[in-house]
């Protein structure tokens, strides 16, 4: 067997779907700390702008993909996936989830000022937003999916425009501090 990084590389290569850090740990038989370190070094390997392969990471799931810059050439050999346009409400919701995720629905609604139940469901049906925690009986939180990052042509939410400025903007902290956990609407 190769070292841990190599095993994760093999695993992600054959996975054909986004795989959570937890699943990766189970499959390669390593602790979450060891997996996290190995993932970091794997990302390092594929970070170069001329790499043909990229590692997409939404903070929970990972998937290997082609470098977005090579899209046109890749289209020669595989069928192009149809993404379809986003409505303004979908775009706005996806944006907040992408920059602030993982985020709960009450937090999202505090930022958008509008009920987001239907739009979140829509985005989940399109596979652009992932819900986590619902099965564990906690308030579910949402994050942008690996597929959404893939379509956007970025490796992780941190690659979004002005990410550092927005993700911990003082307004954001001030606004989210007004959300009480008991305001959760089901």
């Amino acid at each position, binding site marked *: 067997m190769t070292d841990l990084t190599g095993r994760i590389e093999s695993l992600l*290569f*054959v*996975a*054909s779907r986004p795989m959570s850090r937890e699943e990766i740990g189970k499959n390669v038989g390593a602790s979450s700390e060891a997996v996290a370190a190995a993932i970091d070094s794997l990302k390092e390997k594929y970070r170069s702008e001329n790499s043909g392969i*990229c590692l*997409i990471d939404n903070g929970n799931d990972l*998937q*290997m*993909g*082609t*470098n*977005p*810059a090579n*899209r*046109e050439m*890749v289209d020669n050999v*595989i069928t192009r*996936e149809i*993404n379809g*346009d*986003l409505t*303004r*409400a979908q*775009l*706005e919701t*996806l*944006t*907040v989830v*992408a*920059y602030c995720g993982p985020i709960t629905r009450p937090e999202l609604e*505090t*930022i*958008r*000022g*509008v*009920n987001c139940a239907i739009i979140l469901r829509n985005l989940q049906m399109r596979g652009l937003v992932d819900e986590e925690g619902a099965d564990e009986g906690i308030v579910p939180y949402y994050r942008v999916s690996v597929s959404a*990052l*893939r*379509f*956007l*042509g*970025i490796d992780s939410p941190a690659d*979004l*425009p*002005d990410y550092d400025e*927005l993700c911990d*903007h003082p*307004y*954001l902290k*001030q*606004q989210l501090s*007004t959300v009480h956990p008991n305001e959760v609407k*089901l």
Partner: protein
Amino acid sequence: MKFNLENFTGPLDLLISLIEEEKMSIGEITLSKITEQYLAYLDEVEEVLPDELADFLVVAARLIYLKSKTLLPRLLPEEDDGPDLAVQLKLYKLFFDASKKVNRLWLSDESASVRIEPARVVASVIPPANFTAEELRKSFRHLLQKLQPPKPIPETTIDKTVSMKEKIDSIRKFLATAGRVNFSKVVGDLAGKTDIIISFLALLELFKQKALTLDQKKVFGDIIIKKI
């Protein structure tokens, strides 16, 4: 003018578009200035009552509160203001702008493709251990629980309201003919809650413009309006 709530992604989107129309920057003063347009807008859409209207009304209430605060700065306590609408709107605007950049990424031709590992022939397909009819039934019940519709919210109707400008005009007219008038007469017998709020805001506005004097004998008593 024909308005459609669906043109906006929410009340904050509507506020942004009103503020941009006025070419103003986001702040409490601006918000208090566009309160009237916002309420006028909601008047126009009252024939259709989409679920989202509730969110628009929450913001309407906060605008009215802000407006009354600017009109009567000394009479209202500062604490217990709840979340700051101006901050919320500024934050919303940041994401509103970011969403345009995200859309450019979405529409650009650059995106990553993934590979599908070709299916392999497995010696023997064993059914998954948890694939039983009972598991399916349990799973279906669990799904139905999630799909259970929420209890319907009691329905109420929104009162037909007049705009603040109309109200100001009508108060001026009352005063022009009589010189003094009671607030109860200004709002009339059939006034709804929103109507009373608008009338009161109109009154405060005129008071601020020093167009009239106000007198109230006791708390919650009728207000006597006199021309200056």
